[in-house]
């Protein structure tokens, strides 16, 4: 296994203070602390070259887990192994094979063109010149970076900066790639471009990828497997289809009718009825039976069965459904 997490626990001690001047002055004398259980007994394993989507609401513990896996945070308890290393040891041999891309964090040099940061990475990661040239050319091509390389990072748009961030993070061809909200704040076009690039990069280099994102599109486009975490606890670990099977208890049947019919007396859970379009929600186990009945009793021109949106499924996981 490239990544092995066994009973990972990470607790933070954070100070707590009410707003206002009085509370501020009081805080100078007496501090109050809370223990935040960011990750509580989480275990999973990821084999080489797998892309895993790491899902959960804000504060679920996704980023904390990634930070433990990349050696930024020392676990409170439990064992973590990445590429055979204990991440918190932060050995050079480990860090040279890893990248963590954080959507909200700038790892380039703000006042310099991205190319200057790439040169620093080349030295720090000891990338031989021919391989650096080859990888840079590939990344410039895939990410369309040519017009950006000689511009100060601070004048780049968010999408442009993220493309440069990714290039900087991939120059040393990491075997393990942690992506924390890589498409956060990007427009739809930039999100799609970044997803396309990541999928292509994974195909070419076979890196093991753990991806967190609030955009389900990122996960469905890239991940073969999802891990769902909520309030620090693991809720689901498996492939997307299994997640859908387990948590999508309803289907939506969309009908296009050839003539108007009254729907009140049909005993259906109507989701939408407008003109000749009709959508009904049915229990997943009865989908075929209801679809057959609708075809037999209504003037159906077209029929489609849809699974609920993945966002709804994830919501049902968080709700304990």
């Amino acid at each position, binding site marked *: 296994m490239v990544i092995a997490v066994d009973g990972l626990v990470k607790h933070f001690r954070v100070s707590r203070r009410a707003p206002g001047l009085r509370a501020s002055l009081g805080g100078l004398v007496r501090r109050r602390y809370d223990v935040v259980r960011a990750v509580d007994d989480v275990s999973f394993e990821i084999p080489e070259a797998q892309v895993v989507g790491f899902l959960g609401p804000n504060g679920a513990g996704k980023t904390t887990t990634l*930070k433990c896996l990349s050696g930024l945070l020392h676990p409170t308890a439990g064992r973590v192994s990445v590429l055979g290393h204990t991440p918190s040891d932060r050995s050079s041999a480990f860090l040279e094979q890893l990248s963590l891309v954080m959507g909200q964090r700038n790892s380039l040099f703000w006042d310099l063109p991205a190319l*200057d940061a790439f040169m620093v990475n080349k030295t720090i990661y000891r990338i031989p010149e021919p391989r650096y040239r080859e990888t840079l050319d590939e990344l410039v091509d895939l990410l369309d970076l040519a017009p950006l390389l000689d511009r100060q990072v601070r004048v780049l748009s968010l999408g442009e900066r993220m493309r440069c961030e990714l290039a900087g993070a991939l120059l040393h061809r990491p075997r393990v790639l942690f992506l924390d909200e890589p498409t956060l704040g990007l427009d739809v076009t930039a999100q799609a471009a970044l997803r396309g690039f990541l999928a292509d990069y994974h195909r070419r280099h076979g890196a093991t990828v753990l991806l967190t994102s609030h955009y389900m599109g990122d996960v469905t486009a890239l991940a073969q497997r999802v891990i769902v975490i909520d309030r620090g606890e693991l809720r689901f670990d498996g492939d997307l289809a299994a997640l859908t099977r387990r948590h999508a208890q309803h289907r939506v049947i969309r009908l296009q009718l050839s003539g108007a019919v009254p729907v009140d007396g049909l005993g259906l859970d109507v989701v939408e009825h407008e003109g000749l379009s009709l959508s009904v929600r049915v229990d997943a186990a009865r989908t075929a039976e209801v679809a057959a009945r609708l075809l037999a009793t209504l003037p159906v021109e077209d029929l489609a069965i849809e699974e609920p949106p993945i966002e709804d499924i994830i919501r049902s996981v968080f709700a304990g459904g």
Partner: protein
Amino acid sequence: MAEISIRYPALMRSSALAVLAYRGRLVVGFLTDLFPFLLMAVWLTVVATAGPPRGWTAADFVAYYAMAAVLMQLSGQHVVWEWDRDLRSGDLSVRLLRPLHPFHQYVASDLGYRVVSLALFVPGLVLVAVLLPVLTLDLTVTRAALAVPATLLAYLVGVLMASIVALLGFWSTQTTNVWMLFWGLGSFTSGWVAPVELMPGWIEAVAPWLPFFTTLGFPVELWTGRMTESESGVHFVVAVGWALLFAAAYTVVWPRAVRRYQAVAG
């Protein structure tokens, strides 16, 4: 160590390029480099009104504070502000993810900045020395050969001392105020407020054994000839001792400090 040192030039280069990106910052930086000359002006007034204290003439003060201005640039204290900012913002995460200890990243970055500022400052100082004969160093080859390693040791001790104070940020989050207090108290024994020879007897007796003197007074007195070659031996021993002590302290504190890192934001 060789593995680490080959990474310094690239980081120094990027830091130097960042300094050169803003002309205004360069000018302001140059002006703050002139700050030691304010103290020089105070002492020149003293000489003019009360005569040379303990035989220190106007020329002695000019040479002393000119070299103090150079050594101030090599104090290494800038790293405290870098550590402090990165710890509070969480930007330290970026440095921790690189396969090079953050200490080296901060030092290389500081050196890159110093290369640019010294490249502007030292030629300016030489020009002043040529135009105003009052600024002379009366340097011998032997003393210069000793002053160079003394200056390097001053930087090493200074940057190690500043880095250890910076590590307190893992416990207190904010360290620049602690450093200002530490540095402010130390400036009475470093030779910054006044040459140690002119301080009260007990400070003059204690100062040579403290790290603050190693970072400023020791190399400045060697450069200006206030300290002889034979007198410098004991100060080299003290300087190496502080360097080793601080390096050992850093290696002990660092693993405990980094365990407390919370990697805030992002």
